[in-house]
C-alpha cells in the first residue's frame, strides 16, 4: 500500500534527554547517558544499567498540580505529545480533528504493579481505584487527549515488539480516509521494578555495564530503555514535509508474508542487543548501508518509534547520522549524505513477525 504521510513534528524523551535537539546531539556524538535502575529482589537490592527518561520538562506545558495523579508512563507520553505539537507549530491550533494513536508493548507496568501491591498488602477490599484506572493501557492516550482537548478518535495498540508498525498503520489509514486532519502518533514504554526483575531472571548475567552492540548478533548486550517518541503526522498532499514522508508501513510474518524491501534503501535495524532476536536480522547484515540506533535509547518494545524519529531527523538534515555501534557494513563514524535514498526501519518480533516503515525525504 503506497502512503504519503508527512511527518510534521517530533517529540522525544528518553535516556538521551528530552526533545529533538537532545536526540540530535546524541546522534552526533554517538553517546547517550546511562543510569542505574535499582530494584528489590528476594536476594536483596539489585541494580541494572538502563536508559531512563526524565519528564521534568512536562511542567513547561502543564501546571504541576495537574500532574499529581498522573503516573510516569502517562507523563512520558504527554511530554512526547506536547513536544511534537510544539515542534510542528500546532501547540495552539484547534485540536477537534486531531487523532491520538499510541503504541505500547507493556503499558503502565509500574502502576499495574502498584495496583497489585495494593491488593497484596491490603486485601481485595483495599484495592486502589486510582491505580486501577491508571493501569489500563489507554490511560496515557486518555490523559493526553484530556490535556490537549483532542476530541478526535483515540486508539492504543499493544502488540509487544510490533506495537509501533501496527499502530502506525492505523494512524496512516485515519489520515488516508480523512477521518482526521492530523494524528499525534507515538510509542511509549517504561522501565520498572517488575520489568527489571524479570529481565534479570530471563537473561541472567546482564548486570554488567557493557556497551550495546546490536549488530553483533551473537552477543547478548541489551540494556533496558524507557521513553516516548511521538510524531505529528499529516496528509502530505504535495505540501512541504520537513521531516520527510512515510510512504510504506508493512506488518507481517516471514512465514507466508513477503518482506518488501527496496534495494537501495538504508536500513535502520531494530536490533537491540538481544541474542535471541539477532538471528532474524543476520540476513540483512550484508546490506550496503545499515545502522542500529538502539544504543542511544536502549531496548524497549516501542524502539521503532525512536528509529522513526531518527529517520525523520535524517530527512530533515538530509544526512545519515553515524552508527553508534559500529559493525562491519554499517554506516561509518561520520555523517553521510542521504542522497535521495529511502530509509527503512525494520523490526523483528518473536516467531517471525516483522514490521517495516519506509521514510523518504
Amino acid at each position, binding site marked *: 500500500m503506497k502512503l504519503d504521510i508527512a511527518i510534521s513534528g517530533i517529540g522525544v524523551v528518553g535516556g538521551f534527554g528530552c526533545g529533538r535537539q537532545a536526540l540530535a546531539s546524541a546522534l552526533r556524538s554517538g553517546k547517550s547517558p546511562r543510569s542505574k535502575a535499582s530494584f528489590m529482589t528476594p536476594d536483596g537490592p539489585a541494580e541494572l544499567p538502563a536508559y531512563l527518561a526524565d519528564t521534568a520538562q512536562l511542567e513547561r506545558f502543564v501546571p504541576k498540580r495537574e500532574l499529581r495523579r498522573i503516573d510516569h508512563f502517562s507523563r512520558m507520553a504527554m511530554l512526547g505529545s506536547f513536544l511534537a505539537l510544539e515542534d510542528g507549530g500546532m501547540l495552539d491550533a484547534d485540536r477537534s480533528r486531531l487523532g491520538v494513536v499510541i503504541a505500547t508493548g507493556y503499558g503502565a507496568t509500574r502502576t499495574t504493579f502498584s495496583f497489585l501491591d495494593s491488593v497484596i498488602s491490603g486485601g481485595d477490599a483495599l484495592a486502589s481505584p486510582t491505580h486501577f484506572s491508571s493501569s489500563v493501557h489507554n490511560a496515557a492516550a486518555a490523559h493526553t487527549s484530556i490535556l490537549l482537548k483532542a476530541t478526535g478518535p483515540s*486508539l492504543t495498540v499493544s502488540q509487544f515488539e510490533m506495537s509501533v508498525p501496527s499502530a502506525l498503520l492505523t494512524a496512516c489509514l485515519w489520515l488516508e480516509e480523512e477521518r482526521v486532519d492530523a494524528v499525534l502518533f507515538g510509542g511509549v514504554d517504561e522501565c520498572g521494578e517488575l520489568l527489571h526483575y524479570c529481565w534479570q*531472571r530471563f537473561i541472567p548475567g546482564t548486570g554488567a555495564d557493557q556497551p550495546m552492540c546490536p549488530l553483533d548478533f551473537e552477543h547478548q548486550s541489551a540494556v533496558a530503555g524507557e521513553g516516548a517518541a511521538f510524531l505529528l503526522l499529516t496528509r502530505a498532499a504535495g505540501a512541504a514535509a520537513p521531516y520527510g514522508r512515510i510512504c510504506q508501513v508493512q506488518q507481517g510474518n516471514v512465514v507466508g508474508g513477503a518482506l518488501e524491501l527496496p534495494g537501495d534503501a538504508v536500513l535502520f535495524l531494530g536490533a537491540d542487543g538481544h541474542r535471541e532476536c539477532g538471528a532474524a536480522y543476520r540476513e540483512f547484515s550484508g546490506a550496503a548501508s545499515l545502522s542500529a540506533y538502539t544504543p542511544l535509547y536502549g531496548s524497549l518494545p516501542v524502539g521503532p518509534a525512536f528509529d522513526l524519529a531518527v529517520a525523520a531527523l535524517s530527512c530533515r538534515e538530509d544526512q545519515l547520522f553515524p552508527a553508534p555501534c559500529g559493525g562491519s557494513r554499517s554506516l561509518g563514524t561520520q555523517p553521510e549524505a542521504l542522497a535521495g535514498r529511502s530509509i527503512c526501519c525494520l523490526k523483528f518480533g518473536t516467531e517471525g513477525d516483522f514490521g517495516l516503515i519506509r521514510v523518504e525525504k
Partner: protein
Amino acid sequence: MMRHLPVAVTGLGCLCAAGATLPDCMATLFAGRRQPKAPTLFTTGHAVTYPVFEAPLAEPESAELLRTSRLALVAAAEALADAGWTADALRGRRVGVCLGTTVGSTTSDEGFCRELRAGRHPDLAPMKRILKSNPARSLAREFGFSGPCQTIVNACSSGTDAVGQGAAWIRAGLCDLVLAGGADELGRVTYNGFTSLMITDESPVKPFDKNRRGLNLGEGAGILVLESEALRRERSKAACGFVLGYGSACDAHHLTAPHPEGLGLKRALAEALQCSGLTADELAFVNAHGTGTPDNDRVESRVLSEVLPQVPFLSTKGYTGHTLGAAGGIEAVFTLACLEQGRIPANVGFSEPDPELPATPVREVTAVSGQAALSESLAFGGNNAVLVLGKGES
C-alpha cells in the same frame, strides 16, 4: 470524511455466558434467560459477592495461553467455520487479525507478584504465558495467518474499534480477509478494580433501570470474518452482514466518567452514520453499551433520545455481563444476528423507568424492520465507538 464502501461479513462466532456458540447465545437471549452467579474461576475476599457471567469454555486448561486467547480461539474457529473457511484454505491469502481486549494484554500476574513480595523467586511460567498470549498474535499463530496483526487496548470500546479498524484494512486493500472482534477473561484484577471504583452491582445488572447500581463483569469473545469483495466473488459467498460505517471520538473530559452531555458519543454517532451514508430513520435498532452504571446509562439515554429518538434500543449486557474488551465484538455479532432474525431480545434487567432518563429500552422481544442497526461502546479514557452494521444477503 469519506463515504465507506460496505465491507462484507461472512462468518460469526461467539462464546460468552449466554452460550458456547452463537446459536446457543441467541436462543438464550430470546428466551430471556440469564445466569449471573458468584465467581468460580477465582476466589475473592470481599464481604459482598458481586455476581459475574462466566463463559462455558469447554476446552481444557492450557498452561501455554491466557484464558482470553483461548476464548478468542474458540470464537474464531466458529466464525471461520461459519464463513466456510479452513486455515489450510486460507494459506497464501493476506489474512489479518484485529482484536480488542483489556485483560488479554496484561503484563503482570498476581501470583507472580505475590511470590516476589513474599521474598521468593517466582516460577517464570506465568510471565512466559503472558508473553505468548497477545490475543491477535495467538489467533495468527494458531491459524497460520501472516498479515497485519493488531491488539487494540482501548478499554471497553476495544472490540468495536477492532471491527472498525479491521474493516478499514479490507477497504484499503491490505487484506483479503480479517478476523476482527474482541476477547476478554474474568479475573481478580478487573473484579477488584471495578469493585474499588464502586460501580459493580451486588445483584444482577439492570441496564437503564431506575434502580441500577452498576455493572456485573462477564467474559467471552465475539469474532467476525470480514472479507474482501474480490475474495467473496471467487467463491460466490453470500454475506451474513456488512460493516457499513464506523465512527469514534474521545470525550477529552475525564479518565473514567463519560462526558455528561455525551459529546464524544454524539461525534462518534455522527461519523459512523455519515460514512455509512445512512440516516437515523433507516436504522432498525441500537445495541447500546448499557452497562448498568448510573453515569453510562444516563448519558447514553440522553444521547439516544436526542439523536435517534424513534429508534428502539436495548443493552445485551444483562445476558452477558460487561465483557470489557470483548463487548464490542460480542455485541456486533449479536447485532448482525438480530438483523438476520428481524427481532431484538428484551433488555433484561429493566423493569422500572428512571424519570431521569429520557429514553427507555425495549422490555420484550420486539420485531424490527430495516436493513441496518448500530452497536455502540463507551470506555474508560472517554473513548466512544460506533459501528453501523447492515443486514446480510441470505
